[in-house]
């Protein structure tokens, strides 16, 4: 067995009030892919930041080829041959592909200025070696789709002859075909003798591409080994610390009459001719590949964007929300996908986040009444079993799952008729996931109607009464969730022609 390229031992990192990593051990071997597995909040992103020099560990040692190194800045990590490919590309949209590949280490002329010609030709060489010749080295990065942006990030890794490549949820925004291409690339990296750290929670991918695994839980390393010797259930158990069978809540579907009818909803560039119905106490799933236009439709329903044609009828009355305030007044609320940016106001206390849309009700003649706000916040956060030390705590200090609860609480407090959840359990630990699902069941039991946009097949299949599949801005098909299977959904979403009618 070859010696590891990179080893971490005894690494710890704390922030005020949070122990992100404690006494962590990790080894990356050349030519092998090691999967880093863990729930959200387990410490994976902190680890990546330490490896890329953004953070410095409070304790412990990092060694490359057996020699201790000090990754004091991103530049030093770069110099040691460590490079990372992040979920959202951290590159420059306005610069060209070649510039992005060579940023920080562009070939210089004798005068010390940048040698543009050499840079472009070297960029092309790298892209060719990767089998990505279809990418134009002179194109601006923003013109590329997310898959190609990832390829540029990989090209950057190749160009610095990185020895350690970190991939953080690289397939999150990729289509199936693009994922296949990425795997081919990873094989290339392996052949080149690079050590790859692959962070993902998708077991099928992990088992496909990785050789080893390391599991983190609550900031500690709880297990590692070879994937071929370990079963999935074991790994999940290590992740969660308990045996988990994710069962979706049983619901009594007392589905009523249509409560929301959307017909012919269109937008010049985002979606076209969207027609569907949402019935009372129903959970309507919206499935599709990334970029299918689902969130865009929801944002039009919520008044954030304006449709160019079509009608929306809620409870028998036509509505045309021109702003979220209009939509809320009509009874439609939206739990956005980007929690931190669109869902919570991180520096405001929990109770202020919860009361924000409901101020008209808690206040008197426009004057704040804190007692009523606290009461409102307490009622809804307790219903959702929020874990927080006080309601005056800034919402940003909560974990992802708890922040999601605050967002849901905020909307429940407005007594809506329709609640739209956009990727409600993305990036949330299993425990909170189950809580959100259970809660959705309770909501519909009380007469609310739910639209759930999700890219997680188990969630779609487990929770929806019916499923709307969107593809490239249009509705491909609406299914009843009877005997529906994942393959059908994926094929419909990808536009693969079905063999039988």
């Amino acid at each position, binding site marked *: 067995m070859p010696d590891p390229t990179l080893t971490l031992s005894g690494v710890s990192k704390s922030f005020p009030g949070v122990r992100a990593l404690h006494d962590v051990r990790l080894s990356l071997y050349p030519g092998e892919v090691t999967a880093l597995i863990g729930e959200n909040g387990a410490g994976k992103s902190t680890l990546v930041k330490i490896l890329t020099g953004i953070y410095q560990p409070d304790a412990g040692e990092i060694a490359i080829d057996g020699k201790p190194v000090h990754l004091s800045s991103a530049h030093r990590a770069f110099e040691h041959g460590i490079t990372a490919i992040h979920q959202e590309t951290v590159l420059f949209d306005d610069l060209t592909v070649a510039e992005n590949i060579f940023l920080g280490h562009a070939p210089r002329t004798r005068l010390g200025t940048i040698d543009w010609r050499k840079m472009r030709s070297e960029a092309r060489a790298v892209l060719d070696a990767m089998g990505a010749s279809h990418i134009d080295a002179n194109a601006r990065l923003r013109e590329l789709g997310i898959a190609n942006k990832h390829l540029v990030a990989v090209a950057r890794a190749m160009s610095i002859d990185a020895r350690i490549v970190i991939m953080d949820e690289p397939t999150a925004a990729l289509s199936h075909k693009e994922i296949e291409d990425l795997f081919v690339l990873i094989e290339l990296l392996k052949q080149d003798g690079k050590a790859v750290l692959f962070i993902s929670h998708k077991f099928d991918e992990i088992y496909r591409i990785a050789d080893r695994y390391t599991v983190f839980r609550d900031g500690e390393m709880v297990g590692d080994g070879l994937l071929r010797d370990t079963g999935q259930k074991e790994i999940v158990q290590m992740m969660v610390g308990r045996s988990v069978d994710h069962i979706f809540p049983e619901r009594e579907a007392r589905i009523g009459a249509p409560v929301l009818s959307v017909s012919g909803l269109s937008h010049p560039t985002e979606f076209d001719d969207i027609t569907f119905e949402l019935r009372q106490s129903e959970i309507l799933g919206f499935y599709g590949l990334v970029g299918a236009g689902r969130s865009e439709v929801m944002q039009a329903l*919520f008044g954030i964007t304006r449709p160019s044609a079509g009608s929306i009828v809620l409870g028998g009355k036509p509505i045309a929300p021109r*702003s979220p305030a209009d939509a809320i007044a009509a009874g439609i609320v939206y739990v956005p996908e980007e929690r931190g940016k669109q869902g919570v106001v991180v520096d405001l206390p929990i109770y202020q986040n919860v009361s924000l849309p409901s101020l008209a009700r808690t206040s008197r003649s426009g004057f*704040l009444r804190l007692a009523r706000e606290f009461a409102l916040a307490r009622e809804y956060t307790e219903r959702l*079993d929020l874990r927080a030390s006080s309601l005056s705590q800034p919402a940003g200090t909560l974990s992802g799952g708890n922040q999601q609860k605050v967002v849901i609480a905020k909307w429940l407090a407005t007594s809506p008729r329709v609640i739209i959840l956009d990727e409600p359990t993305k990036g949330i630990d299993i425990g909170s996931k189950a809580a959100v699902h259970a809660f959705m069941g309770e909501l519909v039991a009380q007469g609310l109607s739910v639209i759930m946009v999700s890219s997680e097949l188990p969630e779609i299949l487990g929770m929806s009464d019916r499923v709307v599949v969107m593809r490239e801005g249009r509705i491909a098909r609406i299914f009843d969730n009877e005997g529906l299977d994942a393959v059908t959904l994926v094929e419909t979403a990808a536009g693969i022609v079905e063999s039988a009618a």
Partner: protein
Amino acid sequence: MNQMQQSAPTVRRIPDRLDNPLKSALFSWQTLLLLVAVAIFVANSLASPYFLSPWSLSDATFNFTEKALIALAMALLIISGEIDLSVAAIIALASTAMGFALQFGADTPVLVAIGIGTGLACGAFNGFLVTRLGLPSIVVTIGTMSLFRGIAFIVLGDQAFKGYPASFAFFGQGYVWWVISFEFVLFLAAALIYYVLLHRTNFGRRIFAIGNNQVAAQFSGVRVGRVKFVLFCLAGLMSGIAAVLLTSRLGSTRPSIAQGWELEVITMVVLGGVSIIGGAGSITGVVIAAFIMGLVTFGLGLLNVPGIVMSIVIGALLILVIALPIVYRLVRRR
């Protein structure tokens, strides 16, 4: 308190607050400012024998109340994440409008209405550009700053409007009771109103939400555009009121009046603890900061320090006060 024992997990009782962490944070800034204010007061009284007389103290108020009135509205605007550099130019334009009306024989109530109205209109114009056209307020108000004062220059050139009626002089020069000037009383009343508006109403809460995370606030149903438009109008309104007071105090209008005031107003606001990037601040802090600046400039004036040197003190004070907590944190980390 109520623990519901069921087969389901017990319901947690989350307390409203632990201690008052947020309040104590703001509290310490205001306490710091208060200490500084007291220190300056003491320094002034030691430095000059003229300082402690009631009339003298009353005179001290004149030189900052007009700016402080604008600072109240500016604070709200900055907390919401915007800024208005044209406030001084609005004063010039409003004053010019009043002077213009004066030429047509307008009497005091009309003059006041025109002054305040012009200010309001200018504020609305700014508000329109920022909220309806989606333009960044810092450069837009640099533009309107030139435009408004430019219009004043076009109308007046290097002349001045004079001859304001006697009754008009009351606003800027009159006293309500003994040494307490009308301007001062107006400021205190306005400060109270703005305090309640920012800290005790829905409107104020929405301002903080917008300043902290505009997108999330919008997604939560806050009518961001409307709120910001109102704030720009308020800034214009207060500038119009300040124009009435200033013109009344000077008894004349020149297009160059209030030159440089926008920077002093912003200094007052930032000194008062309002974060320049938005989302945090208090009226109490701004009021104390206004007093500090008034005391410093008046005290230095009594010592015959020229205005331009005073601004060194103000500039240094601004940087020092902002830097102090940061330096403190850095030192503690070592």
